[in-house]
């Protein structure tokens, strides 16, 4: 299942780091961060609860970019 989220991130490098961090989060099959449009597309593994996984994703992203925001 794929979902599109609005994000707020200041620099392009951080966006790349966020993408890495999201991909490594448990329950995420794949992720793409688009810095230009400030959107993140997350593909969840089967049977995962998007909200719970996104909580983890936000935590991991905050580790690499403490200023970032994800709307979910």
């Amino acid at each position, binding site marked *: 299942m794929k979902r599109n989220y609005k994000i707020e991130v200041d*620099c392009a*490098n951080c966006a*790349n780091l966020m993408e890495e961090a999201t991909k490594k989060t448990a329950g995420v099959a794949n992720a793409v961060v*688009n810095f*230009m*449009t400030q959107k993140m597309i997350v593909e969840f593994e089967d049977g995962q609860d998007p909200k719970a996984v996104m909580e983890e994703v936000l935590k991991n992203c905050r580790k690499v970019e*403490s200023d970032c925001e994800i709307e979910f």
Partner: protein
Amino acid sequence: MNKKQKLMLKRIIIASLLLIALQFVPITGVLQLICFLAIYGIIGYDILWKSWKGICNKQVFDENFLMAVATIGAFALAIYEQSGDYNEAIAVMLFYQIGELFQSYAVGKSRRNITALMDIRPDYANIEVDGQLTKVDPYDVAVGDIIVVQPGEKVPLDGIVLDGKASLDTSALTGESVPRNVVVGDEITSGCININGVLKIRTTKEFDDSTVAKILELVENATSRKSKSENFISKFARVYTPFVCYSALALAILPPLVNQFIWQVGANWEIWVYRALTFLVISCPCALVISVPLSFFAGIGGASKEGILVKGSNYLEALSKIKYVVFDKTGTLTHGVFQVSAVHHNTLAQEKLLEYAALAECASSHPISLSLQRAHKGEIDRNRVTDIQEISGHGIVAKVDGKSVAVGNDKLMDQLHVAYKSCHSTGTIIHIAINNDYAGHIVISDVIKPQSKEAIQALKKAGIKKTVMLTGDRDSVAQEVAHELAIDEVHSQLLPADKVTQVENLLTAKEKDSNLAFVGDGINDAPVLTRADIGIAMGAMGSDAAIEAADVVLMDDNPRNIAKAINIAKKCMSIVYENIIFAISIKALCLLLGAVGIANMWFAIFADVGVMILAVMNAIRALNVKNC
């Protein structure tokens, strides 16, 4: 400017003023240190905090860390040397923050400009309820509702015209300024601007499914499909930052040690640590990481303004390497609308022959039947026609006014044992036999689009090595069209599966680094579109299937846009390569200068910010595609 940016601007201004003020206040020693530290705190607290959190989260090597180490190091050096010269450390942090603010502002502004440029979304719809018009949000309009679009307004949803007629400006979708006319019964696409008539429309789709919304979504998501260049830059940045940190460390430690123990001269720690710090400051990869995605964003945005929808940055990249273009004939290079061009050997009057043919064909919707029906000027009275038999691949046999009329190709005539006369004209020949007597034949030909010839020439100018045309039509027709348009290779009389085989042969034959594009109308060509390196669908306005099937969608049906798409892609890619080469070489040069001591920290900051600004400005150039 958003809140964060405004706050940063205030901090920069305050810190700068205080710094200048401190130059004129004669304090020394610990008090001076405290004042400078205060200013440093104002301008740099967030960087220090982020680098601390980075270390805690095991994300040590990033820009913040570099900046923190560089500036704290500079402070330490100044304290150690008791020079009281803390200006440098603060200046470094100050200029870094200015640079970051400028970058954030420039990128934000560019992003907003490009998004505004692409914003073709209609803001409201006029719903008619009981004769009253109310303005509503387009999202609130249901399928089947009646909406009214007045002159000057944008059509908010896809639908069918119930009443009125008008000229439409389709440039928001197609980039084409020639207006299209609609009358009652025509389908109308959202995003067009009504020029001069009042239109009453019954909606066929909700707002989210209407063409406008679909195009916007497509273009927005396109930059999420990353190109090879972008992937390269991401990988580069991931390797680069730790590499520079370690290099800086080596620069700070090794030369002094070598000096001390091998050359047996003074270590000169101060000089080498300073150089290492400068090294760190120059090393930031912002220019690269920002400018490449921005170029693609601008390129895709600019292309969409011209009615060329590229579904991914990777496709834009692939487009620039196209060397072979394969065309479908009917509907792509020709109008796909057949017309009666001649009647030969008719034993009855031409009009009569056409009348019989039209009547026999009245029940069919085959393009050839439709052209026969159109050629007959009078009314088609279906009551005169009975016992219609459609023989697939052959034609139609029917009873018109009691007479047996056969309308079809050579095979039909053979089947009925009617001797027919062949034709030396190119085109599709339809023979007519009445009561098994040959009555003559009608020549039907497809009309080449007027822009096709110019389109092929433009492609050759754009560097295409070979143009190929594939068609299911007869060889003589295919050869004539190819000759007329100066196309290099023709394959005719192909079944749909044969087209795929032809494309596969061409793919095997081409060089590794060049790409092959297939251009079709999208509806019948899905397998071939998928097989080619790039599938281009033309005339996609109003066709969801075409938009779905292809990688590049040309909203207008003008083949000239194929060369335009390739030129836009080439321009974008050259900007991307310019930025990559420029950024990397300037950085390398400055790193070298910093390592040998020619460049100081001020120079370092300017180099960093300057390169980034230039790269961003260059990236925006990708938006100008008018003359491609």
